[in-house]
């Protein structure tokens, strides 16, 4: 209370909130963050610990390698999703999300398989596939940034277009494909590590550098976390957000290459990957100090989901349960993040 008789003329001289520091986030919210983070690690440890006891050979080298290989497709798709979430913000309704990314993989796999079967050379087929993925990403970017459609709806629509396009190309059948590249990818190894695993390792490294260690990555976070602040800092928000969708599209087509190699062709049902991809991207948040999506967190989550599915298999639980568990994980993660947000305001 800085008011005294000297201030008689000063209508606003009293500044009542002077002595009251306002913390933007209460200590309690910080505590919740910590609890969630520790809780996440403990939960992961408990689940993996249980399987290591209950499922014979769960932590054997061959099984771990197997899980990593199986997780490559999920991981790469989830990286694309993570970028979109970073750039679009974590708001569950209006934030960034790419629901078309798994269906994108499906149609790209169909493009790859059919073009190989049409007698196209490997490099051309790869170029066509990646081009298809980029095009789908560009359509998403145009719908979200150009037309201003909510990402949730825009990418849902594009997802349906992708599913339709895949059906047109494949007539809902398995299309086998064989080529030198496909056999190299499915059976090749380097330093004793399979091509699938290499894909995941290299993609993780590239994305970690891009997102966590470059100016571009820092700005991507700014754009998603506080649009006005990014704008005030002179950043072209639209370009960053558009880029995230295009890169996600590219991730869809890269995953398609792996999927064709793994299944020796294109096969229906690619869109079943959507749920685990969302889980991996959102669950990754709980592994970061700032409670934001990170590539490292997404990678951990993708591997965790891989181990979960694998563990269920080993202890002979129907794989149908895995779907339910993933749904619960989404619910848990989303409610946790909204819990911290609420405590934070």
């Amino acid at each position: 209370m800085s008011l005294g008789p000297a201030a008689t003329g000063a209508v606003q001289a009293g500044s009542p909130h002077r002595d009251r520091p306002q913390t933007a986030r209460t200590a309690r919210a910080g505590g919740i963050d910590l609890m969630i983070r520790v809780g996440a690690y403990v939960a992961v440890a408990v689940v993996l610990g249980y399987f290591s006891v209950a499922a014979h050979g769960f932590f054997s080298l061959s099984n771990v390698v197997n899980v990593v290989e199986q997780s490559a497709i999920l991981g790469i798709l989830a990286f694309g999703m993570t970028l979109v979430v970073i750039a679009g913000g974590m708001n569950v309704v209006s934030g960034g999300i790419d629901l078309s990314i798994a269906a994108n993989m499906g149609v790209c796999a169909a493009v790859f398989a059919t073009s190989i079967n049409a007698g196209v050379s490997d490099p051309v087929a790869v170029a066509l596939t990646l081009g298809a993925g980029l095009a789908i990403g560009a359509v998403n970017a145009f719908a979200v940034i150009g037309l201003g459609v909510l990402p949730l709806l825009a990418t849902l629509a594009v997802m349906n277009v992708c599913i339709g396009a895949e059906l047109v190309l494949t007539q809902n059948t398995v299309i086998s494909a064989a080529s030198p590249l496909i056999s190299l990818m499915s059976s090749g190894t380097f330093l004793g590590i399979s091509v699938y695993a290499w894909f995941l390792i290299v993609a993780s490294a590239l994305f970690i550098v891009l997102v966590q260690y470059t100016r571009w990555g820092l700005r991507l976070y700014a754009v998603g976390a506080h649009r006005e602040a990014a704008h005030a800092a002179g950043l072209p928000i639209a370009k960053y957000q558009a880029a995230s969708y295009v890169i996600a599209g590219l991730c869809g087509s890269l995953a398609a290459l792996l999927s064709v190699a793994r299944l020796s062709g294109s096969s229906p049902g690619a869109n079943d990957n959507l749920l685990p991809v969302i889980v991996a991207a959102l669950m990754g948040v709980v592994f970061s100090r700032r409670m934001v999506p990170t590539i490292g967190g997404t990678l951990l989550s993708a591997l965790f989901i891989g181990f979960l599915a694998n563990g269920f298999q080993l202890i002979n639980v129907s794989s149908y349960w895995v779907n339910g568990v993933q749904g619960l994980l989404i619910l848990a993660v989303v409610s946790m993040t909204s819990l911290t947000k609420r405590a934070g305001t």
Partner: protein
Amino acid sequence: MTATSRPPALSMRGITKAFGPVKALADADLRVERGTIHGLVGQNGAGKSTIIKILAGLFRPDRGTIEIDGEPQTHLNPRQVEARGIHIIHQDRLLVPTFTVGESLFLGHEGGFGAFGLLNRRRMQRQAGEALRRYFSGIDLPIEALIADLTTAQQKIVQITRALLNRPSILVLDEPTAALNKGEVDTLFTTLRGLRDEGISVIFISHYMQEIENLCDRVTILRNGKDVGTVDPRTTPIGDIVAMMIARDIKEMFPGRKRKIGAPALEIRDLTVKGKFEDVSLSVRRGEIVGITGLIGSGAKEFLQTIYGLRRADGGQVLIGGKRVVIDTPAKAVAHGVALVPEDRRSHGVALDLSIRENVTLSSLSRYGSMGFIHAGRERSGVDALIGELDVKAAGREVLVRKLSGGNQQKVVLAKWLSRESSVYLLDEPTVGVDVGSKVEIYQLLSRLAEKGAGILVLSTDLIELMGICDHLVVLYRGRVVAALRTAETDTDDVLKWATGAQASTRPDMPAATMPAS
């Protein structure tokens, strides 16, 4: 001061800007010399923010010329403005909550931190530390901390440091001290004086006249879109500056007190919340405005919250209209005709993204409809009447509250409760961040409410305000009532002594429960 031969750092002349029929600026001049701190004051709506937005390149003036360092500028856009060395620190803290201090300082200007777009985080953090030490030495600001974990004051400092890193020639600060405490304000002022001595011009917008007096070399007063004077605040009495702002004598700000005092509307007996306040008693009669004040930690705020059911009392009684009631939730308070106007209106008082109409009728929809349906016509005319009565300055009842000034937002909060016709009003710092003109209107409104028979309890730390509007004043010190005074028989000095504990409570017989009769 600069030699007269050098052109001023900034010269805006004859600036006129209209929004539809409303003239925000009419032939306004602003001339800022190099190496000076130049205050800009005026009521909300006087044109302060419009002239700053024109300078920022966000609005284009209808007429007028702008010269920076003597060079005429045409069609300023935000990027050019920055290139000319003008940096504006807006009231909103535009910082990314999940970023560290270092990242926030350099976002958008990370360049030079490594090749290929790679970030050199270590260097970034080091330079951030150097910058903070240079401009805000003595303020503890961990550079690894996340923005979300900082106090609003610390965030403000980050924002200012961010602008200073760009070596501005003109720095514009829009209400920078609103969230800072005394020590932080002093540090900021030292920094600004240092910048001035380096030849940087500072434009400083504030509602706090003492700050203008302490800091500024010149001050330009805006009223109704026109500059009505540029004076030296160190030699011009503050009263004169305020008079120029409002074109009215300060004594006229407060409404006369010719109210009829009736039966007790609110009686509090020995209310206690352990650790916050103890055995606090007071009564507010119909037609009476009672003030309650105290330093931070006096328990006054908690006391108000307890009456409204936001806190659970550990003991004591609350009587409304003579009847004993138990209020342990805000819903019960509302049901008993008790209204609370909270201090932080942005987070508690109004829904920013709803219209004025929706905000006003939100808690009283039943009055405007039947069987769950809203009678739109009745609602519209009711809201229009309240907007008119409170003189809310807006283009219409459908305007989003977010777009209103602080004073007008506060009026919407008041309108919301008026629309319920409560019998007891609790107000927590009703005029914080509100311009002088709106303050006067709020005072008049409170006075009218009392005239209509409501009992009003105002918590404020603005003693002039309390002396001006209240009949009685209760002073809390460390959770206890130390004085119950009639405002007619005391002065701010006396109240301040009680509130700060300088005057020990040596009157155990002081009947706190019963106010001196008027």
